[in-house]
């Protein structure tokens, strides 16, 4: 038998055991209540699918072709009424506080019926992640509080997140690239705030959101060291919308052009800036900026994986139904061996994709953005205390500087770099896996269904149009593969350099 020192030594070799099998150590630490909650979330999603998503998905897609100006305001109102925009906001901020991993299961369910509708619900949480990851608890309380009030009053308050610019897409996903890139969204420091000039493109749900998390740069030549995060309210002077894109799929979810012309953002809407970050960490700003990006996409990319798994499942289910009701040479398709094999392959893809987001979520739950929420005592404390307690006792604390400083220290100063790499690497791995499998299943379903698969009213062609986007946004799968290399492989190879290829 080996001594425990020998075991540790063996397990720290590549691949490090702690990075390769996340569910093994973490599943037993999961609060049991999460299972009950997740079951409830899935049941809610299935109810929503039956009552809203399934009856409307195809009709809405058709409508967006008839009327390319369509905006999903009706859907947003419905989702708001169903409580989806606060469901995964922690209770300390007044939300319903469902556990974050349960959102992936939700995304798979709703995504299996319509990715566009799922995006109308889900993109908001990209914005929420952008707010929460900043460690700015005061502003988080204010903005998320508005979302909660929006739900109560029936006036939806959504958050969009804007990083992508006409000249910089992949570049803004990665600090190594952004300094070489062509960002143009400029934030000028003025008395009492910032003045922003620039354009953002492809911003999901921009037109129908109340708040936008906007990234701009104080020095366009050194963006990674001068990034500022700003909360911009729709309607602010100097902030307007351009067109929204004419997309191949996910057409119910607009992708907007945002234009900033001498747009003034007051200090109390600054999410983070170099000066603010300096109050809680001495780490190089570039490192902090990369960590911030990793927190956000580390949490949201497993969600995109779940979207992809949803499409993979939708394609599977549609093909299964077709095969169970259609004959070829007088025999039901489902009783042809090749069909059974193809359906099994599709089912397998769904299951593998689900494993990928589950693992990535374990990483986040124990080593990432929301790990505090998942500690058993914290989890039960947050679930069981009455809301009034959070509103009256915790709420005022969140507004204090020490609260932001503490969050900042926790998230940026005291967090281990290997945890950051694990979460970010797994998030990218899951994102690539789930979306590629999703595309694969949609393609297989189309092939299996022959001419029926081509028809919009059969559903699967829309899934193929919808799924393709997932290989592009939240970083192209190309960028995400490089991030897998950077986070999970390169650290073991001293001579490896990423994003510095010779021309």
């Amino acid at each position, binding site marked *: 038998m080996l001594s425990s020192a020998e075991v540790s030594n063996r397990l720290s070799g590549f691949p490090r055991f702690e990075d390769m099998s996340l569910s093994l150590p973490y599943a037993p630490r999961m609060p049991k209540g999460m299972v009950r909650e997740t079951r409830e979330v899935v049941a809610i999603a299935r109810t929503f699918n039956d009552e809203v998503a399934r009856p409307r998905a195809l009709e809405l897609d*058709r409508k967006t*072709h*008839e009327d390319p100006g369509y905006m999903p305001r009706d859907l947003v109102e419905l989702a708001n009424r169903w409580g989806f925009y606060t469901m995964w906001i922690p209770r300390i901020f007044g939300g319903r506080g469902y556990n974050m991993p349960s959102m992936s299961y939700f995304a798979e369910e709703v995504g299996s019926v319509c990715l566009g509708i799922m995006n109308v619900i889900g993109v908001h949480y990209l914005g929420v992640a952008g707010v929460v990851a900043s460690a700015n608890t005061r502003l988080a309380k204010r903005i998320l509080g508005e979302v909660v009030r929006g739900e109560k009053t029936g006036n939806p308050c959504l958050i969009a997140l804007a990083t*992508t610019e006409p*000249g*910089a*897409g*992949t*570049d803004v996903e990665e600090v190594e*690239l952004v300094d*070489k*890139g*062509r960002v143009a969204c400029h934030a000028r420091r003025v008395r009492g705030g910032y003045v922003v000039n620039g354009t953002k*493109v*492809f911003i999901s749900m921009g037109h129908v959101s109340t708040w936008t998390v906007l990234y701009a740069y104080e020095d366009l030549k050194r963006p990674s060291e001068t990034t500022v995060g700003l909360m911009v309210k729709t309607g602010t002077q100097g902030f307007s919308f351009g067109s929204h*894109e*004419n*997309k*191949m*799929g996910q057409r119910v979810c607009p*992708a907007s052009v945002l234009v900033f012309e001498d747009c003034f953002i007051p200090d109390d809407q600054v999410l983070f800036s170099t000066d603010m970050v300096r109050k809680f960490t001495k780490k190089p700003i570039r490192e902090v900026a990369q960590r911030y990006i990793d927190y956000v996409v580390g949490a949201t990319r497993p969600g995109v994986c779940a979207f992809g798994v949803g499409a993979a499942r939708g394609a599977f289910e549609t093909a299964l139904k077709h095969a169970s009701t259609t*004959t*070829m*040479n*007088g025999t039901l398709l489902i009783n042809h061996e*090749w*069909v059974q094999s*193809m359906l099994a392959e599709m089912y397998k893809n769904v299951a593998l994709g689900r494993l990928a987001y589950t693992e990535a979520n374990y990483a986040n739950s124990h080593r990432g953005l929301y790990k505090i929420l998942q500690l058993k005592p914290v989890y039960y404390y947050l679930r069981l205390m009455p809301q009034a307690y959070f509103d009256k006792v915790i709420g005022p604390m969140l507004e204090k500087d020490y609260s932001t400083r503490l969050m900042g220290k926790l998230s940026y100063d005291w967090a281990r770099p290997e945890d950051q790499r694990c979460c970010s690497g797994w998030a990218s791995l899951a994102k690539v896996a789930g979306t590629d499998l999703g*595309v694969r299943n949609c*393609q297989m379903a*189309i*092939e*299996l*269904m*022959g*001419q*029926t*698969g*081509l*028809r*919009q*009213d059969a559903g699967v*062609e829309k899934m*193929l*149009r919808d799924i*393709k*986007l997932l*290989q*592009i*946004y939240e970083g*192209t*799968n*190309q960028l995400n*593969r*490089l991030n897998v290399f950077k986070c999970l492989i390169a650290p073991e190879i001293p001579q490896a350099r990423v*994003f510095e*290829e010779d*021309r």
Partner: protein
Amino acid sequence: MLSSFKSEWKPFEDLARSFAAKELAGKTEEHDRYPFGEFFHDVLDKAYEVGFLGIMLPGELGGAGGGIGTLCTVLAALCRADSSPGGIVFTNALVQKILLAADARDIAGEIFGRASSAGGFLAAFPSYTHPAHQDNLPEYKRSGRGYSLTGPVDLLVLGGLARRAIIPARAGSGRQGSFFLIDLDHKGVSKSEPVFTLGMHACPAVDVRLDRVRARLIGEEGKGEEYFDRVLPAMHVAAAAMNAGIMRGALDEALAYARERFQGGREIIRWSEVSMLLAGMAVKADAADMCVTLACQALEQGEAGWSSRCAAAALHVHEIACEAVTDGVQVLGGNGYMKDYGQEKRFRDARQVQALLGSVPARKLDLIRKVSGV
């Protein structure tokens, strides 16, 4: 690009390319809005004028008298710009080939010889099926001196535009099929609105229900499958040529974009990951051209043993086309997903073209049956 293999095809390629440059370039998104936008009747009329609607039809029947190489050259060049006109040319050629295979020259002459407009020259066909693989064909009955057809025809391509259609049908429960000519204005024909499909929106199809529709038999009764099998090798290659053209278009656009687009301080073509995507597309586009060219040459020279090779070549070309167009979107990033660029349409169209002449699995099984004799 097929003409780089055989110079005889060059004039046709030039013709199709100049047609595409004049009639299609810059308007593909607008044309693709159908059925939610206008149909491009003007383009169809011009295609008729230059003879694209009857490329392989003999001159005495009103066609251009070209061979399969000519057809493929024109299809590839058209689809490089926009596959919808390609789909129309393909469907018309398919109908003409069936008529010729059945030796129904009289009917061909009546339809095409006398036509004086694009509308008159068009004939509809359910191009996304292999009739022998369809379990639910319409039923035909003798009625007086002719026949009558009853039953559904899904995705009748050009059914909303043409006056006539060729319809496969069976007698009662028998498996043997026959082809019939019907008049789409007959009172027993009810047509749906244009069916909204994945791709090739401007090569529209409608669902049709036939209720005791008067029909003329094409060739002999029970020989439908034989005729269809006779035209299949060439038409498989023609469909492959469409996807070869689509791939070429995807590669053109991806290369141009990758040379211009900067990320990380350089043109993205200088990131080797992007170069690899482009290389994969280039390999596939060239392989497709070679498959199509070789098959055309063999067919034109009447070489034996090419029918299953043509089917195989087509299956292969479609498969690599569907891969290449996915990468074509990817190279353009977010822009690849938008209708302002051509890649998203190619992504959809390639799949639609792949489905011509029946489902992929059915065609694969058919291929092995024919190759093995089992």
